[in-house]
């Protein structure tokens, strides 16, 4: 991730010279609605390790997040945002207390697929997957305690993974922010930016594209030293 962030920053720096169009494709201001199918990401996802989930767990989770926020005529979804990658990473950190719930919950989803359809959850048709997820959401799935709570947890984390700052491994390529029209992190906002009907361009910036919030400034710049202790 660190490498990716650095390359993004470099890309943006370069964009300042060669023009924003190099980074923000024309027409990216609003996601296509209905009439235009979105173009899938050009590059296949980079090779990603399974950081905390098992391979089977990861397959189930990838399939779940894809149904929660599907890729469709309204644009890319949780899959393209890499929401499952966000969750896998966070399970070793801020969401570590949820790791046992994921172990139990993902196994229960897989078990439900096997017992009702005789297939892995990832290999079911979308409508079959939705049926299982709906039974978890309603808490009606047989023999699984806490199914509804698990569903709510995964939904909340999928929203985080789709719409969070890309630093955390989700909202890849800012697809989540573009989907809902969030123009990106700015540290200065003008009165004009807050008008009704203002067309604020997507800037494709993470909080950590601003150096003052990173470790890099500590050794060099005066901003960090200019604190209230002075």
């Amino acid at each position, binding site marked *: 991730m660190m490498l990716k962030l650095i390359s993004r920053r470099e890309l943006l720096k370069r964009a300042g010279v060669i023009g924003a169009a190099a980074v923000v494709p024309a027409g990216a201001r609003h*996601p296509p*609605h209905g009439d235009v199918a979105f173009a899938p990401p050009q590059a296949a996802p980079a090779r990603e390790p399974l950081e905390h989930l098992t391979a089977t767990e990861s397959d189930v989770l990838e399939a779940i997040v894809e*149904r*929660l*926020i*599907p890729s*469709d005529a*309204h*644009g890319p*979804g949780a899959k393209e945002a890499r929401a499952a990658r966000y969750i896998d990473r966070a399970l070793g950190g*801020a969401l570590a207390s949820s790791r046992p719930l994921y172990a139990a919950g993902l196994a229960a989803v897989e078990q439900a697929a096997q017992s009702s359809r005789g297939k892995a959850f990832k290999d079911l048709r979308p409508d079959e997957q*939705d049926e299982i*997820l*709906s039974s978890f*959401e309603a808490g009606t799935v047989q023999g699984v305690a806490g199914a509804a709570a698990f569903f709510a947890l995964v*939904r*909340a984390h999928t*929203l*985080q993974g*789709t*719409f*969070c*700052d890309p*630093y*955390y491994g989700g*909202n890849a390529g800012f697809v*989540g*922010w573009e*989907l*809902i*029209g*969030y*123009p990106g*992190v*700015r*540290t*200065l*906002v003008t*009165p004009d*930016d*807050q*008008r*009704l*009907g*203002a067309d*604020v361009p997507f800037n494709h910036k993470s*909080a*950590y594209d*601003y150096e*003052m*919030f990173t470790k890099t*400034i500590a050794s060099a710049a005066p*901003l*960090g030293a200019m*604190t*209230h*202790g*002075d």
Partner: protein
Amino acid sequence: MATRLKETDVVIVGLGAVGGVAALPLTQAGLDVVGLEAGAWLTKRDFAPDELRNNYRGWPQSAQKANQEIPTHRATASSAPLPRLAIHPMMNAVGGTSLHYWAQSWRLNPWDFKVVSETTRRYGSSRIPGGSTVEDWPFGYEELEPYYDKVEVEVGVSGAAGNVNGTIDRRGNVFEAPRRREFPMPPLRGTGFTDLMAAAARTLGWHPFPGPAAINSRLYQSRAACMYHGFCNRGGCHVDAKGSTAVTTIPKAQATGRLKVVTRAHVTNVDVDGDGRATGVTYLVDGAEFQQPARVVLIASYTYENVRLLLLSKSKPYPNGLSNNHGQVGKHYFSHNQTAGVSALFPWNTNSWYGLPAQGTAVDDWADDNFDHAGVDFIGGGNLWVYSDRRPIAAASTSTFGRTAKSWGSEWKAFITDNADRTNTSYLQKTTLPYEANYLDLDPVVKDPLGFNVCRITAEYKENERKIAAFIQDKMEQWYRAAGAIAVERAPVGPMGPSTHAYGGTRMGDDPATNVVDRWGFSHEAPNLGVLGASVMGTSGARNPTLTAQALAWRTAEHLAKSFNAIARRRT
């Protein structure tokens, strides 16, 4: 064995919104002050515009002393405990929660100081709700006005005055009490949406105005103006435009050379002598124990921790906790009725992605006693507030106002794609009264990692609060509809759990039988122990408490500086 430190004139427990203010008049008067703060110094670089970190992972509230001692909560003395919060509503750091609060900086309405006498005079004493222990404050608004003024200048408050020495200005709050001069800064600007809401309020005959905020609307005392970047809600300021005490009164107090700031100091006891006077405090830093002798002790942590520290500080003169020989510590507790919100869906984008919770439009027509209560069956009211504050995860988590069958899948996704920027949620602060049955004490079972019992809340909203909530929801819906909302949703009143607006527990008043501290904020029992914070407030008003708590802290500190030899324990 505690390391005994050199005696100081005053020790302040907690350098947050109120302790950080009190330090300034004390040190300027020439007193030596030690400020003990459980948290650390944070700087602009710590305040990244990062929703996940600020609003979902509880940074900077996480990994704090406060999180080891989250209060427990039950509705009544006979009901089961409710689920405990995962994160304490407040934080520890130099500046405390003033680092990341909304910074709405209101003066109370004069009625809030005289709820009992004014209600009795206008409507009869039968209108005081049964079971309420509400009293008039020991003084009125005019006593606090000079201190409101001092704090507004020192922390830097922006706003539009509605009443300067009796002259009404309709650009401000026409219901506010007289102030001696304009705000130090003009109000924060409006947005397209909040201006539209103001216009809608005027069509209803109401009196909208921009709210007051401890946020710079222009360069002020060498601090930058607000950048309106959208991460102010539980986020600190990256340009120090928010008037946290960490960037205002505390550095000014340090500049006197008389304030010693000790960080990561976890105070475990207020120490007393055989005569019942405070002798100082005991605290831990990374497991090492220190005793800080002081001639005066001011406790300035949050309401829950003020009460808890007193109840934990048991001694021979105070077997039931410090200053609790009248059994009043923890009593008259209430938290602000901010639940029962109202949300709206508009048929156009509101463009609320940027801004801050303090950037908005207020309506005070239905607050306090600003309208005739003869025809309603409650006293008090609510302040209506709409503001510009939206972040992506929260926006995607919006209600669908019943317009989709599911909260996931393609139909739901189409809704949020179209409507993420078309919703608004109002902030409705409503009068809340103290009641006999609502109180704080120590949880008999739940302890912090050091083995000290945590604070327990026993409280629920009563009839008066519920009636106000319903009344104010009607008004808010009317306002949203007038602005063109196509759907409106109401939230329930809900439980009265740990809150950022917690009052009482060490109430201020002349009668020691019903109040812990006197009219100056000093204990009726331990005369050199002062209490700072909203824990001394006996009524809430319909607006954020911080400025009032800060004005009271300044007043207590100034009184102490003027009467130091009379109040202080003799030098040891």
